[in-house]
């Protein structure tokens, strides 16, 4: 298959064009960790329920649709490339913004409780004294993904809402993040219950900053955000694959 496309990410072209099963590789595309592109070119089977809704198609697809139908792979590649570059750019900006805000906000010091003697509580959780709490900051990437950062004098709380495109991703995300939250002891900085309206929350106190490096904590949070999307895409892929295999086997007996 010849392609005369000049694009930034040559690796993605090589992957997609020579792949006999383009739809399967789409979901595992490493250059696009955050978007599971449910775009299938194989004849629709009852199990492949996902398809790209018309509203989320890239505008460049209109131009590519004028190409002969025999080169449908070509248009599929263009869609994936244009989505790749804009998606990659937005996620990069979003993560940079969060990283900068965290670097500025993570200035924590020990502060014993003002009301009760000999107690030391994370002030961001109590929310009682206005002089100890900074303005909360909400960073949205789009309508679905956002990140709330609340800082106080001795603690910082970071709550995230991950992207959930359809019902299946909703269920997978909930299960996966609940699994992680239940093991919050092992993570140390994870909160057992997410803040209302969000999927997962971190609570970092001054003690964590004393024990661990600040820049490493921030790296961890940002890396976590990147990896979550990849994990959920992989989970979705494995669920779909397994379902397809099981159904194929089961329905074979009726042939």
């Amino acid at each position, binding site marked *: 298959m010849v392609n005369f496309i000049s694009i930034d990410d040559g690796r993605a072209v090589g992957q997609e064009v020579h792949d006999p099963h383009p739809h399967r590789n789409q979901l595992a595309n490493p250059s696009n960790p955050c978007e599971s592109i449910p775009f299938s070119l194989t004849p629709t089977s009852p199990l492949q329920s996902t398809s790209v809704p018309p509203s989320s198609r890239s505008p460049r697809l209109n131009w590519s649709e004028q190409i002969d139908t025999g080169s449908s792979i070509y248009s599929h590649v263009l869609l994936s490339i244009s989505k790749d570059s804009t998606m990659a750019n*937005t996620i990069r*900006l979003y993560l*940079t913004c969060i990283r*900068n*805000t965290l670097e500025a*906000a993570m*200035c924590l010091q020990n502060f014993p409780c003002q009301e009760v003697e000999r107690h030391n509580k994370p002030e961001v959780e109590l929310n009682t004294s206005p002089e100890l709490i*900074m303005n909360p900051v*909400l960073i949205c990437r*789009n309508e679905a993904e956002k990140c709330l950062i609340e800082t106080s004098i001795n603690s910082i709380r970071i709550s995230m809402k991950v992207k959930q495109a359809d019902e299946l991703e909703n269920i997978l995300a909930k299960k996966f993040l609940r699994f992680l939250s239940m093991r919050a002891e092992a993570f140390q900085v994870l909160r057992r219950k997410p803040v209302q309206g969000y999927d997962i929350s971190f609570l970092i106190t001054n003690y964590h900053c004393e024990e661990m490096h600040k820049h490493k904590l921030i790296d961890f949070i940002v890396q976590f955000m990147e990896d979550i999307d990849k994990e959920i895409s992989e989970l979705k892929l494995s669920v779909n694959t397994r379902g397809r295999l099981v159904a194929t086997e089961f329905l074979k007996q009726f042939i």
Partner: protein
Amino acid sequence: MEAEEEYLEAEENLEAIITRIEHKSRKIETLLKQSKPVDALKTALEGSALKTRDERCKSANWIVVHRAVMAIKDVDGMISSLDPEYYDILMKYLYRGLATGDRPTCDQCLRIHEKLTEKAGLGCILRSLSDTVNTV
């Protein structure tokens, strides 16, 4: 007695602020028609009444600033030509824009945020987080 006087003074000021914002928005529309987005943003940012607590004034000012911010195409040029005294105010408005959740606004705000942090530094972000007196 004193509290009443202050209250009346504040009310008067609100009306004055809102008329000033309307005046500003007309000026900004003309500047945008003349393709001067940087001047439009400067006009939008200056004279922002940050000390007031009234939500209407803040929303009105935000609408005006939002209009100017969305019209910016060349972010680097805009930041280099902006006076440093406006960095803090712009950063506060950027965070307000990021909180809206509207995709094009967030895209634009994220773009400007990255460049503004490079220019103004982390102190700008910290001032926008910790300033409870001058809010946007």
